[in-house]
């Protein structure tokens, strides 16, 4: 553990030694990946089968990595909590995947995709990682097409593209409104092929509950078979976590109900640093909350902003009128008004905050929830006039149908209503250029790591990162680590294994013994409300301090008063959820502490105390151009320790973002 260099700050955290990424080679950013691949050690094909890797999560990053490493000849064990790897939440991504193919000849290039992503992330991501992402993006499309992913095509048989928020070129490849589904099925099929070939062993309906760290290296996991309840030990030469994001800390989010932080949080408690936990992306185009029993929020693809126009009434007194009765001159197309060059296609953080602002002014539309209307119109009337109903249906039909299914309103007749919702978390476990965490042998891929999106993620780039990590980056970097293996044989009697297993058993037993008065979900909802109120779209010092107190009190009550029925040796969904909520209750506090210490506004982090005169986010590069990598403070209530990784920009100049 690192020495603390100062006392407690705000009584909440301490600052430790700086940290740095030592794996990205020096030299021009465009050469770094080739250099790293060349320098990484090789493993002879005959030796690969002696090496084993555990991969937790079967989404785009985990599924692609398992398939690729299996195909390369390593022995892979793959885990997911769902009944089939095909159900990972990557499946829900709608709009598309970016790639620097320049098929439209509209000025796109690897450098431009890199530049847009760094700028879009508000200069809080790592240059070398982002450049690599842009570089391999074109290979992803080739790979997926070869697997049979049915991307949209033009009549000449070639691939079609569209554009997405925050960029001015058409570089997004898509499969109607279900691009994530189709890409995931491609990875899933590649994975099933390896399962049939015997290189990958699949463990579905398994929850990873602990990491095994022996002699300072990650060597395995403790998992619970969700059907039988059996606690299993799985050992390997390296462990990959590709377990997605933690947006469900807010309870209501666009994440799948089962998405959780347990794998990365357990790893954090074992020594893996957590990078930028407070960076949450709020997505501007979700279906607004309808009632208090709602279990999740549904995203409407951002691609709708290509043709839909966003507006609210100019006057608050018009807000309860039928929108079709409000004449053009009484409508405020506020994005087109404030940001004329990007209009409705401004990046997600800008669009989200603008929607919040007009609703806060009292110009929100739709039903009142409490005493407040949370909604703005996303109107297809112009597009229907310009393009014909058939053309709109061809492009967006399934999204519009989905909207109608959920709200009971027909978007071809009445403008849709949207409101921002928690969607993606840019924070995650800290990794170096090799995607290795601060625990040797523990690699982290996709949304579970922090590295590529900075403080805000541009649309159509999450799928790109998941597949880049899984198909192309990790298989090259983990090889360098595995070349030093196989590591000393570990058996189940090793102290590290016994301890990890005992801690899991004890935790499950404790959850079942409390037998209090409140359900797991009631705690989760309350935590979500605290997080949204104090650590959501807009944060302030006062609010965050209050949020931390509230979370601590709630966590204390949870461990005294939660009610989990049933037993541990059977399928027990309350027990599964209880363990996850317990981890969210710890993560929530760290998110607030991270948000508190970052006294600037950037990307998905709007700090009320730091704004320009016209209410735009104000960054402070002189103070905060670093990654905040948090070290676990210890089980006995120790405060978390902040390690700063300075962000150095050589290829792009840091500028205040402007989309005006």
């Amino acid at each position: 553990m690192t020495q603390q260099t100062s006392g407690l700050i705000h009584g909440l955290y301490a600052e430790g030694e700086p940290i740095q990424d030592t794996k990205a080679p020096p030299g021009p950013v465009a050469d770094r990946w080739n250099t790293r691949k060349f320098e990484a050690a090789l493993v002879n094909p005959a030796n690969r089968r002696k090496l084993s890797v555990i991969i937790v999560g079967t989404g785009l990053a985990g599924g692609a990595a398992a398939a690729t490493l299996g195909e390369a000849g390593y022995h892979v064990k793959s885990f997911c909590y769902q009944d089939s790897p095909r159900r990972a939440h990557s499946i829900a991504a709608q709009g598309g995947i970016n790639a620097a193919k320049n098929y439209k000849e509209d000025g796109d290039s690897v450098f431009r995709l890199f530049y847009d992503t760094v700028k879009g992330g508000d200069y809080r991501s790592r240059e070398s990682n982002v450049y690599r992402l842009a570089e391999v993006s074109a290979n992803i499309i080739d790979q997926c097409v070869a697997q049979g992913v049915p991307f949209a095509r033009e009549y000449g048989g070639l691939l079609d593209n569209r554009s997405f928020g925050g960029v001015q070129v058409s570089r997004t490849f898509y499969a109607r409104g279900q691009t994530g589904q189709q890409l995931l099925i491609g990875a899933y099929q590649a994975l099933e092929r390896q399962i049939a070939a015997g290189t990958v062993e699949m463990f579905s309906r398994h929850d990873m509950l602990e990491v095994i760290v022996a002699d300072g290296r990650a060597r395995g996991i403790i998992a619970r078979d969700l059907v039988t309840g059996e606690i299993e030990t799985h050992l390997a030469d390296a462990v990959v976590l590709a377990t997605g994001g933690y947006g469900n800390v807010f309870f209501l989010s666009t994440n799948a109900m089962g998405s959780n932080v347990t794998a990365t949080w357990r790893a954090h408690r074992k020594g893996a640093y957590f990078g930028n936990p407070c960076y949450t992306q709020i997505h501007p185009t979700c279906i607004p909350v309808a009632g208090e029993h709602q279990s999740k929020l549904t995203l409407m693809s951002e691609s709708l902003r290509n043709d839909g126009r966003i507006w609210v009434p100019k006057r608050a007194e018009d807000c309860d009128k039928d929108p079709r009765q409000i004449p053009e001159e009484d409508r405020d197309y506020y994005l087109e008004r404030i940001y004329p060059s990007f209009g409705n296609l401004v990046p997600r953080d800008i669009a989200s905050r603008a929607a919040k602002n007009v609703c806060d002014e009292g110009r929100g539309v739709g039903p009142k929830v409490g005493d407040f209307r949370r909604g703005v119109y996303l109107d297809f009337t112009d597009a229907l006039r310009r393009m014909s109903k058939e053309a709109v249906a061809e492009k967006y039909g399934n999204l519009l149908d989905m909207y109608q299914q959920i709200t009971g309103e027909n978007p071809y007749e009445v403008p849709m209503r949207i409101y921002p919702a928690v969607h993606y978390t840019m924070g995650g476990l800290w990794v170096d250029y090799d995607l290795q965490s601060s625990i040797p042998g523990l690699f982290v891929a996709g949304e579970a790591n922090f590295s590529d999106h900075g403080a805000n993620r541009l649309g159509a780039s999450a799928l790109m990162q998941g597949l880049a990590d899984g198909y192309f980056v990790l298989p090259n970097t983990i090889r360098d680590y595995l070349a030093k293996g196989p590591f000393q044989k570990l058996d189940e009697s090793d102290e590290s294994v016994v301890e990890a297993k005992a801690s899991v058993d004890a935790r499950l037993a404790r959850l079942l013994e409390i037998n209090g008065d409140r359900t797991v979900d009631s705690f989760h909802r309350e935590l979500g409300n605290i997080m949204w109120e104090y650590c959501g779209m807009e944060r302030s010092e006062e609010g965050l301090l209050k949020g931390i107190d509230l979370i601590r009190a709630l966590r204390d009550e949870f461990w005294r008063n939660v009610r989990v029925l049933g037993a541990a040796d059977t399928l027990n969904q309350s027990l599964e959820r209880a363990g996850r909520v317990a981890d969210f209750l710890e993560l929530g506090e760290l998110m607030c502490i991270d948000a508190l210490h970052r006294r600037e506004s950037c990307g998905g982090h709007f700090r009320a105390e730091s704004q320009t005169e016209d209410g735009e986010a104000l960054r402070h590069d002189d103070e905060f151009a670093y990654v905040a990598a948090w070290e676990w403070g210890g089980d006995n209530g120790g405060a978390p320790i902040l390690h700063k990784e300075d962000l150095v920009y050589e290829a792009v100049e840091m500028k205040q973002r402007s989309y005006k």
Partner: protein
Amino acid sequence: MNLTLKIWRQAGPRAKGEVVTYPVTDISPDMSFLEMLDVLNEQLTARGEEPIAFDSDCREGICGMCGLMISGKAHGPEVTTTCQLHMRSFHDGDEITVEPWRADAFPVIKDLVVDREAFDRIIQAGGFISANTGAAPEAHSVPVPKPKADRSFMAAACIGCGACVAACPNASGMLFLGAKITHLGELPQGQPERDARVVAMVNQHDHEGFGGCTNIGECSLACPKEIPQDVINQLNQDLRRALSHGL
């Protein structure tokens, strides 16, 4: 609205199951069917009764994890997934039966949760294109005519929920199978393995205990992604072709 639910409870794979009646009150028409079950489970937990186990995950109609027989219909009265079925599809005072998917190849694990791994094993038998990572040709080197690409996409929209099997009186998985055969068979990339794929997948389908197709058509009517029945014709055509090639 107030409803009477009759729900299948089964403690484990070998336990004897039974239908248990639960009244629920104050259900909003804007709730999804699964949110209504969440409310019931909160009440059961408060009373000290074990909540009802059911599968769900994305709750936006795309992951395919949820699936219930609702008053005898797969996913219920609307053509959608259970998570996207809203209570506005029911009436105050309705009695609703809720059962797990019915098929030998989908054994019950607990209450409303079934094991659908048979579908994964069918994909393992050949539901893929063998393309090693990193060796793919440039994407534009293989044009695909738009009608074929569109038909491929239509079939690829299958979410593997299993409603087709549950709806079929023979518990056949032919719609699921036909969808994959059509998705890959419409693409130039899928041709080299086309014959071998269909034979291996059909063999695995039968081995898993799914029934044969007798063209009843319930599968397609129940499919939340509206996969048309003609993917089964495609499957049969491909199978005949493969057999005529001596496979």
